């Protein structure tokens, strides 16, 4: 029966990992706007991929 202990640990660990992922997603503002990403994905990237100036990378979470 002690195998159940390992399974419980595994399931809790997995669930916690998912929760952590969710918290990260919320904190990084992914739930702020669920509409624009669905539009963004429609535009093909045919322009030569010059990246935006990386020195200007916005600070991730300002809120």
């Amino acid at each position, binding site marked *: 029966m002690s195998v159940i202990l390992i399974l419980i640990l595994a399931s809790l660990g997995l*669930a916690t990992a998912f929760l952590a992922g969710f918290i990260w997603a919320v904190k990084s503002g992914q739930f*702020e706007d669920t509409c*624009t990403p669905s539009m963004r994905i429609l*535009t093909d990237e045919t322009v030569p991929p010059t990246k*935006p100036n990386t*020195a200007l990378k*916005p600070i991730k979470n300002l809120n």
Partner: protein
Amino acid sequence: MARPAGLNLDGKYPSYVDRGLEKAVMDTAESPLARLALGLSVGPARGRTPGLDRVVCYHCGESCSDDTFCRVEKVFCCQGCLVVHELLAENGLEQFYSLSQHPGVRVRPARSRERWTYLDEEKLQRQLLDFTDGNSSRITLLIPAIHCVACVWLLENLFRLHPGVGKTQVNFPRREVSISFAPARIKLSELIALLASIGYDPQLTLGELTRTPKTSTRQRQWLQVGIAGFAFGNIMLFSLPAYLGLDSLSGPLFRALFGYLSLGLAIPVVVYSASDYWRSSWLSIRQRVLTLDVPITLGLAALYAQSAWEILSRHGEGYLDSLAGLVFFLLCGRVFQQKTQDRIVFDRDYKSFFPLAVTRKKGLGEEHVAISNLQVGDRLLLRNGELIPADARLVSGQALIDYSFVTGEADPVTKHAGDYLYAGGQQVGATVEVETLKPVSQSYLTSLWGHEAFQKKHGEHLNTLTNEYSRRFTRIVVVVAAAAALFWIFRGDTARGLKAFASVLIVACPCALALAAPFTLGTAQRLLARLQIFLKNALVLERLAQVDAIVFDKTGTLTSAQNNTVQFHPAQSTRGALSTLECRWVRLLTCHSLHPHSTRISGYIKDEAETSAGLPVPTTTSFPLDEIQRFTETPGRGISGRVEGHELLLGSKAWLEQSGVLVPDLPPISGSVSGLAIDGEFRGFFVFANALRPETERLVRALGQTHELALLSGDNERERGQFERLFGLNSRLHFNQTPTDKLSFVQALQESGKTVMMVGDGLNDAGALKQSDVGVAVVEQVGAFSPASDLIVAAGQVPRLADILAFARTSVRVVHWSFAISGLYNLVGISIAAAGVLSPIICAILMPLSSITVVLFACGATSLAARRSGLSANRRSPTPLDFSPS
């Protein structure tokens, strides 16, 4: 997208080739322009289908009837659009045009960067920027022009246009864009100028300074739901062995382990996820009101205490799955209800209407200065369309001030040097100089916001439907719980008595009750939002159902500027209608004046010519300025000039008579009038009527049967007759109303015991909207400025007000039914609990079952009610791209 369908742009276009033919065509009398000249009344050119002969701009899709620019088979309506196109082409951004049809925004005439230099002031920047560390800054701007997928793409590729721009992110529903940039390489003013140069003028009003981000509360809500859901799932997993009777197999060790794990998982649910319920029930207890949050928290406390006792004393497995489930469902209901349209702002005040900066005279030159730095005695320059930011005195010349937004007066008023000008008016015509007399915060317009109506809060959260039920409900539950406990204790079974007491509190935890209103009203709110009717919150629907008096504003609400009609009535004595040639002269004359009447006459002639197939339009290009001589404009009087050897006079009757024209008596007509004289002979007059919105008559009739109606207008009485016919002779029609008059009227109506709905559109209605029980703001463009209100209705939906009111009443009935259903479940649950035989498994089945039934009933019945009231969203299924401002 409500843009004209684009044409195949590969073809050849006659409009800029055929100008030579114009004269010949103009002289044929068969055209609709001639029909117009015969004095036939023709409505405004609305809803016309784009004819095949119309050329639309490759960039913005507007028709190119005036000046046309072309480059390699592409046609542009103006220099601005052409420049943007070339700019995009140079930077390899031509993909913009393949994303959407004519995605561009018409570019207003180029303005110099100096216009925005005031933005580089550090103090202002501190308020505007989200973040700055000297090397990089980030700003969030509201850009109303964002309307399609191509806009999103272009703005997010802004870095290709300037090396100083970093990452750009668009929030489409809110029409916001946040831009990172290097202040060392591109100043804020240059960034704004760059945006403006491609047609995306950000909204820079005084309100931007005080805008607060909503992000933190929304993030918190999501986190609370997520954690409750996480705990719910895991606790249920641990509870399953107990429900399925596997306890005997797994042994006491696992039973204890599962119990402790569940107990631990439930802690964040009780402490963090349910924290808002603890807080609000504490508040309501302190205010001595029993809101629904009180029994909820009572239930939560009982659940956790009972479970903890059972688990720690190894008596059972507790009710923690029910607890987590309860909190999870409650939070889901809250998210469902509150996830409304972010882009709609309900609490705007005058600040959103005021610009961030004005032009101040400085020595010989001029400078742009932030309004917050404005001082009494400053000399300001007001250009056409600019707003008077503070009460001021006109220094020189004559001004024509349009107060329509503040007072509702439809026509601009003439002011002379030395006159007092109230804040909020807009100058029409030439640039004038004014001297400020009061600080911005103490001016006429802003003082309205100091009125007590803006200070008091509606006791919204206290008198709701749910709270009425919960007051009774809580008392009953406490009485039943105590009675059950006493009953068993007197029979000598103290343990059972305590259990019964806790069980009743647990099972009566009004989950279903708490979900009924949010889901019904939330569904209603969502269905209405698809029809461009936006509720500030779901409670507005409850108040809508109680409305028994409706007060309308006239200008902009029942009438609309877009529906204004111009009619030409030829003088009876003379030669009758105008010839096409004369029409052309009139248009040429009116082209040069900025007075709203002139633009309307001009637009009227142009519209008529445009609707007629292929008729070339007399434009400023085809008639350059030098073809008109001695053009003079007398403010408040009229305009005159000499065209092709003929003297034209267009203006008020008195003015024409002064100029020596014999004017016959005009028949009584509603609306304002401009007379026309050619070569000293009176030829007729143009009548400007404020046309009612379509279907207004039907609406007023329908509402008049069930509600008490009144009309308030800031405008003068000349249209009284028209509205008496509409509202009936005994109705309350009040004209010449100041904003404060309107407020007092609504107040008086409320004091006579009525629940008042005020329907208005402008700042002049702001006080009345605030005072009324339900303030309805009518907007031409969703997302554009509207005064603070409870309900925002797109102008096109105004005729549906009667349906909306009926729907609100049905929705409230649905809430009552939902309460009845959840009451039934509670009856069953409480009977079991009072008997002292409640087990965790019954609880675990009963609670979700009751919640889900209520949620399904609430959503289903509301959708059905919407379909019955003709408010079904099926008529119009919006896509994300449907927020088009056009």
